[in-house]
Structure formats: structure tokens, C-alpha cells
């Protein structure tokens, strides 16, 4: 059992769920989006004075379930009862009236507004209020924040504030409504180190004061550390609900995934290590990268990647992964430093051939309204062999597209369908196929299997390994340390604007924990 769990001073009753104590009960909730069933008759209940973790992978239905509870969307069928009375939560306002508040994963803050304006926006003030003062409307929320020991500057613009502080504003918003039932959606996704501990402290304080807290996550150590009970969802079904002392990480992982996660087989291929060539293919020297607002992301880092190597870059989301990726594929100019390819200058597009799998496929990867075929060909069209003067060799390109669809197992009835018609996994396969097919020498993949199911994940990983076998230099940026452990030859962690080398095989948990600042890893069984 994880000794980091703090039970001192808590008065958790942990009785079996009873319908007579103060509680929220969701029964047989069904929700469909078009032809997909997001929730298939899920039961869930929340008691006062408990932290209830809602665990599951991407696509399990956790957020959907809580969106229904918080009034953002309506179930197709099923009932919700609060303190034994059936309720209809038709809107977020209605949820608020019933004492339910949600702190979202993607903040619903107005970036251009000040802290005060954001808090005032959320306050329940009638439109026609003649005597309206933003400061007055924001006061309850600011008081709540102060009660938790936070000092929020009311006049700061939200877009200038770091993410951890923004989350506090969201939490203050939720508390200002005097909610009895609080829902937190992946709250640690954007936090680092002490911020996570601070959040845990807040959640425990809330629980101890008698509130019911739901905590959506996919990270097992957090569940073990924080929750009183845990419910696991998988693909829209509830798999199990149990008190925390009856479970362990392996069991939870099995419930979450349906089978023991395979971290071994892929890493075998890594054992077949040839001695690395002595000349690095890619070198970054004294690289300083700035973010979009001019903030310092990475300071003076240097690293090398060798041909036939997978170089892993880990770290909590928000430590510069995207910016670094964009820099090393040539989409972002670094503030200072040099990029070299073998002995010459790094000229993306000309010298080397690049394969880029960006973080967000919908925004950066695909043109969803264009056909699957067209999306596959973004890179290929630039090659001289597919062109005849200014014209495209359509037959050859079509053949290429068909080949890629076969090779990468992209499930689509036709290559001429718009890419939007495909599932997320298959859309990602388009992006991967495009990046890998043309014997790229320099491959940068950012969270390439995020949102994919097990089979698709294995497929993509195999493709990366194939590319490695034929000598490509690959940078794999991922927030999943297991993925890095399985695939990468060397790994570094991004944190505090620096790169820190780490050995994931002989994992020194303390060291990793210190480096990541308390972010999760899946515990080895």
C-alpha cells in the first residue's frame, strides 16, 4: 500500500453506500452520441464526506458521466437522485442550485478577463441588477480562496497567470456556490510537484468538511493516495466500485484495461542494441526556446540523437514538449542556439526528410474536411517523383494512398471519404502513416498513441520500431513513462526548463518522483 496516503486526522466513515445518508445516486445512465454509446447503463453514487475516484482510460466515459451530473449535458435515460429525491439536472445553473459544482479539465475561464471578472461572471447575479459591482460579485469566491490559504490577485489578467493559479480560480468559483458535491476532472494533468500536493490537501480538507468529492483520473498512484472509494469505467461500462483498501494498482489496471498491460514484449526489441554509431545525426547546441507569450520554456539545452535510436523525452504536460517538438522540426525558431544535422546545418524539409506526428491531430495533423487520401498525401506531393512539372501525378499518388491504407491498416470504406468520418484511432493512423512512409530520417512523435486503443497503440509502436531498424533517428515525446520505458533507448525528463537524463530500466522511484515533481507513473506490479 502506498504510504504516501495521509489518513491522519481524517474521519472517513467508509460505510458501504447507503441510500439513507446524504448522497448522490446515478442509476442506469445511458448516453449516446450518434451511433456511439458513451455510457451504457452506468451506476454511480457519491457519499458525503468521501473522495470517490472515477477511474478509466480515454474513452471510458468518465467525463461524460460527470458532465451529466453537472448539468452540461442530458442523459438519454436513467435517473439521478440526490438525498433520495429524483432530480432533473437540466443545466449547469440547475446543478448549482442542487449543490453540484464541477472544476473542468479545460478551464472555462475567459483569458482576456481579470481574475475578478471571471469570478464575477460565474456568480449568480440577475442581468438587470442595477447596482452591480464586479468586486462585490467576486467577493464570495475570493473569500473561499482566502479560506484555503490562497492569495489571488483580483486585477491580474487570467491569461497572464500560470496554469496552477488558474486552477485555483476554477476551484474558488466552484466553492463560491456553496456546493455540497464537487467534481474534479483530471485536476493534476496541468500541475507540477508541490502543486499536486497542495491540491491533495485541498481535496482532503473539502472531504473532511463533509463534502462529497469526485475525482476523475486515469492515474493509478493518485487513486491509491487520495481516494476513499474508486469506481472503474471501461468503454462506457461500469466495471467495479470498491473501497480503497480492497484494491491495489494491478487490480485497478486490470479493471481499467481489461487485461494486464504489456510493457515487456516491446522492450525486448530494445535489448537488441547494436553499438550506437559514433556520429550523432542530430545535434542541438545551447538551445533556448520561448513560448508563444515570450515566456522561457527551455533554457540552454543541448542534446544529440543518433541514427537508429529512439530518444525519449518525458515529463508532465506543459513543460515545453510541444514547443520543443516544433523547434526540432523547424516550425518554431529558437531564441538562440544551433541545430545541426550530421556536419551541416539542420534544414528541415531539404536535409533531412522529416516525419512529424504532432500532439493534436485535429488541430495540427489533419484537414478533417478533406478526404482520407488527400490527408495521406500532404507530404508526398512535395516529392519530385509524384509531380510532372507543376502538376501532380494523380494515379501514382492514388496508388500510394491505397498502399498506405493497407500497410497502416487504416479502417475506412473508401479513400475518398472525408477524414472526419473516421474514428480517432484511424485518424491518428493517417497522421502516423504520413509521417513514416517516406523513409524519413528524422522522426519526431509527440504523444503518438494518445487516445488510441491497445491494438492501435501496439501498431504505432511497431511502426516506430521499424523506422528505428532502418536507421532513422527518432524523438519520442510522451507523458507516459511506460511507453518511454518500452521504446526509448535513452530518456530525458523535461522539467524546470531543463533536460534531465534518466534511466527508466533501473528505475529509482525517488529520483523519478523528484524529477517529475510528483507526477504519476504506473507502478510496476
Amino acid at each position, binding site marked *: 500500500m502506498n504510504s504516501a496516503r495521509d489518513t491522519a486526522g481524517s474521519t472517513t466513515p467508509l460505510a458501504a453506500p447507503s441510500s439513507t445518508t446524504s448522497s448522490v445516486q446515478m442509476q442506469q445512465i445511458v448516453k449516446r*452520441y450518434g*451511433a*456511439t454509446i*458513451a455510457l451504457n447503463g452506468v451506476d454511480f453514487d457519491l457519499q458525503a464526506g468521501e473522495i470517490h475516484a472515477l477511474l478509466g482510460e480515454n474513452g471510458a466515459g468518465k467525463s461524460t458521466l460527470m458532465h451529466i451530473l453537472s448539468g452540461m449535458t442530458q442523459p438519454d435515460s436513467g435517473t439521478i437522485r440526490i438525498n433520495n429525491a429524483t432530480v432533473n439536472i437540466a443545466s449547469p445553473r440547475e446543478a448549482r442550485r442542487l449543490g453540484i459544482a464541477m472544476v473542468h479539465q479545460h478551464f472555462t475561464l475567459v483569458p482576456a478577463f481579470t481574475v475578478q471578472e471571471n469570478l464575477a461572471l460565474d456568480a449568480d447575479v440577475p442581468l438587470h441588477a442595477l447596482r452591480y459591482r464586479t468586486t462585490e460579485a467576486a467577493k464570495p469566491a475570493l473569500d473561499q480562496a482566502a479560506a484555503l490559504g490562497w492569495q489571488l490577485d483580483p486585477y491580474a489578467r487570467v491569461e497572464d497567470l500560470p496554469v496552477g493559479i488558474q486552477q485555483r480560480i476554477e476551484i474558488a468559483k466552484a466553492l463560491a456556490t456553496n456546493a455540497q458535491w464537487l467534481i474534479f476532472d483530471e485536476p493534476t494533468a496541468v500541475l507540477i510537484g508541490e502543486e499536486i500536493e497542495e491540491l491533495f490537501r485541498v481535496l482532503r480538507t473539502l472531504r473532511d468538511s463533509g463534502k462529497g468529492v469526485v475525482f476523475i483520473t486515469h492515474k493509478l498512484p493518485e487513486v491509491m493516495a487520495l481516494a476513499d472509494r474508486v469506481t472503474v469505467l471501461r468503454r462506457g461500462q461500469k466495471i467495479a466500485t470498491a473501497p480503497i483498501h480492497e484494491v491495489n494498482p494491478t487490480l485497478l489496471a486490470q479493471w481499467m484495461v481489461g487485461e494486464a498491460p504489456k510493457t515487456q514484449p516491446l522492450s525486448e526489441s530494445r535489448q537488441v542494441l547494436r553499438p550506437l554509431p559514433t556520429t550523432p545525426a542530430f545535434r542541438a547546441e545551447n538551445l533556448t526556446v520561448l513560448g508563444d507569450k515570450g515566456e522561457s520554456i527551455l533554457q540552454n539545452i543541448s542534446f544529440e540523437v543518433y541514427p537508429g535510436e529512439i530518444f525519449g523525452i518525458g515529463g508532465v504536460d506543459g513543460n515545453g514538449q510541444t514547443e520543443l517538438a516544433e523547434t526540432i522540426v523547424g516550425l518554431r525558431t529558437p531564441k538562440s542556439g544551433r541545430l545541426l544535422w550530421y556536419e551541416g546545418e539542420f534544414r528541415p524539409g531539404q536535409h533531412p526528410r522529416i516525419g512529424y506526428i504532432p500532439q493534436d491531430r485535429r488541430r*495540427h495533423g489533419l*484537414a478533417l474536411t478533406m478526404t482520407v487520401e488527400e490527408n495521406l498525401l500532404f507530404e508526398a506531393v512535395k516529392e519530385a517523383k509524384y509531380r510532372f512539372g*507543376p502538376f*501532380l501525378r494523380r494515379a501514382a499518388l492514388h496508388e500510394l494512398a491505397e498502399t498506405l491504407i493497407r500497410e497502416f491498416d487504416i479502417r475506412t470504406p473508401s479513400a475518398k*471519404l472525408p477524414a*472526419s468520418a473516421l474514428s480517432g484511432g484511424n485518424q491518428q493512423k493517417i497522421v502516423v502513416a504520413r509521417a513514416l512512409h517516406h523513409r524519413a530520417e528524422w522522426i519526431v512523435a509527440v504523444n503518438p498513441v494518445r487516445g488510441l486503443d491497445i491494438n492501435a497503440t501496439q501498431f504505432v509502436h511497431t511502426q516506430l520500431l521499424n523506422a528505428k531498424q532502418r536507421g532513422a533517428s527518432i524523438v519520442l515525446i510522451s507523458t507516459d513513462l511506460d511507453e518511454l520505458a518500452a521504446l526509448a533507448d535513452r530518456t530525458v525528463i523535461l522539467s524546470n526548463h531543463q533536460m534531465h537524463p534518466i534511466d527508466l530500466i533501473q528505475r529509482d522511484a525517488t529520483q523519478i518522483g523528484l524529477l517529475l515533481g510528483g507526477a504519476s507513473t504506473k507502478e510496476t506490479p
Partner: protein
Amino acid sequence: MSLAKRLPAKPTPLYPLMRFLGIAFLYIIGFLILLVATFAVFGVAPNKALFALQQGALGGGPISPAYAISETLVRATPLLLTGLSIVVAWQTGMFSIGGDGQLLMGALTATVLAQLQHVVNPNLLIFLMLVCGTLVGALWGAIAGWLRVKRNVQEVISTIMLNYIALYLVGAAVVGPLQESSHSNPESNLLPDKLLFAHILPPSWSGGITTRLHSGVLLAFLAVPIVWLYLYRTLQGFQLRIVGQNPEAARAAGISVNQTRVRAMAISGALCGLAGVIQLLGTSERLSANFSPGWGYTAIPVALVGGLHPIGTLLSALFFGALEAGSVNAEQTLQVPASLIAIVQAAAVLAIIGVNAWRQRYPTELKD
């Protein structure tokens, strides 16, 4: 739940084509219904008016078909080119409404060059006028493109401004250095015959009347396959469309979004500049203060009805041209004002916009 949400998106391969045909059909039917209704409202006998329209567009009664069809084609020409210009710009995601300005600049350039008529060989001069007019139009478009790319100025606003600037440049020219010899009208001298496009239909075909069908019309029609080839068969066109669909993805694929946008605006401007020269040399025969009756704005419904596709725009321009030719006849014989037809056109385009938007659905993404 609204009605729109209950319709599933149908991703079959022929979907775009079927949708276009469906829309075209709906448009024509809806248009006719609206037209008849509007006629009735304004006290015009619908059957007489429709007949007058048909006569003007296709011939019949006292109007020979050759004449009517010539009129249709001649009137369709500027709409075709300006429509294509909109298509190219909008496929890149740039909402240009600068057609009029670019057109005027093309015509202005040609008129300025025409002053060299005594020293330069006429055929060479025509060639120069076409080329330079097109280039100046391209420049006019590129300015708006550059402002968008470098200064984040919405093209809607910058193209409108450029339209007015062009309008007043022409206005100043035709009461100043380019004014006709008697200095009484705000227009230039008539261009000499040797510089004008030939009328290609022999008068015997149209009952002795010389039709206005000129060789420039062929030039305009030639633009259709060229634009189509460019957009759908070349590398630049492909990349242009990607930029229009998802600029972020285009950037990630190594496409210079800024360059592509400016280039698209330049091509768009070039098409309108060309339109200006063709109009000058084929129909108007002189530059005047009110050279354009707003082709650049009418081009928008033309392009929309054409589904933002070059071939569709051709058909659409022909339809609009026919309507114009018909309405001129209706005005002459029945005093039905052309603006009445414009109402129905606009209303019908609104209906298209509405129907399009109503059926537009993005597949909802699965939440966690």
C-alpha cells in the same frame, strides 16, 4: 433537440457531387417560385415576365436566339472571372470582396496603356494590356493579402477599402488626364477599333444585328479549366486548399501559410484584373466613372451558387448572365426593374446559405 441534430452526416464518396446537384436543383426551383411570387407582389404578370426573361436569355419572339445567347454569354463573362476569383480566394480561407477594385485597376491600367496606341503595334498593345492589367489586379489583391498576413487585417475590410480607393483613382483619372476630348463627361475616349476585341458572330446568324459576342468571352471561358487544373491538379493548388481547410495542419506539414495566402489573393486579383481588361476591350470600350455595376459583389452569390467550385461557377455565371440578359428584356418590354430580379437572387442565395448551414454538422467527438 433541434431538427438539425437528428440528421446524420452521410459520408459516402459521391456525397459532395450529390449535394451540389441537389443544391443546384433546389436553387433553380426555389428561385423560380420566389420569382413568380415577387412578380405577383409587385403586380407584374408572372407568365409574361417569365416569358420576357426567357426571350432575353435564350431567344424567342422578336429576339433571335443567337442574339439572346450572345447577350447571356457577354453578361456572364465578367461574373465568371470575378466568380472564379472569389473561388480561389475563398478556397484558401480568405474572404475577399475586392473584385471591383481589382477589376477597375485592370481596366485603368489598360486605358493608360491605350494612350500608346499611336506608337505601338495594336496586337502587341492588346497583349500588353491584358498582361499588365492582370498583373496590376494581382498587385491590388496581394496588398490585401499582405495586410492580412503581416498586420492581421481582415480581408473583408481591406478589400472594401481598396475597392473605394480604386474607384476614386478611376474617377480622378477620367476627369483628369484620361478624360475624353470634349471634357464634358467623366469617361475616357472610346478606344480605337484596332484595340478592341473582334465580334465573332457574323450578323447573318442573328437576323442582321451584330451581336456583342467578342473574342474576350472565349478567353474568359478558358480560365475555367485553367483554374480547375490549378486547384485540383497542381501542388500549389493542393497546398492552397489545405491552407483553406486547416491552416494549422498546413503549417505542420511544412506549407508556408503566409506565402500561400498572399499568392491566393494575387491570383484572385489577377483574375479580376483580367476581367477588367476583357470588359474594357470587349464590351465597355471606354473607361468611365461607373465602369463596374458591382460585378465584384455579384460574384459572391455566383461563387456560392457554384458551390465554390470552378465548374460550378461556370454554370452559375451562365445562369446569372442569362438572368441579366432576360431582365434587360423584361425591363425594356414590361418595365420590370432589374433590381427586382436582384432581390430574388439575393433571397435565393440566402436560402442556399441557410440550407447549407442547416445541414452542416460536425461529428461530435467522444468525450472521455
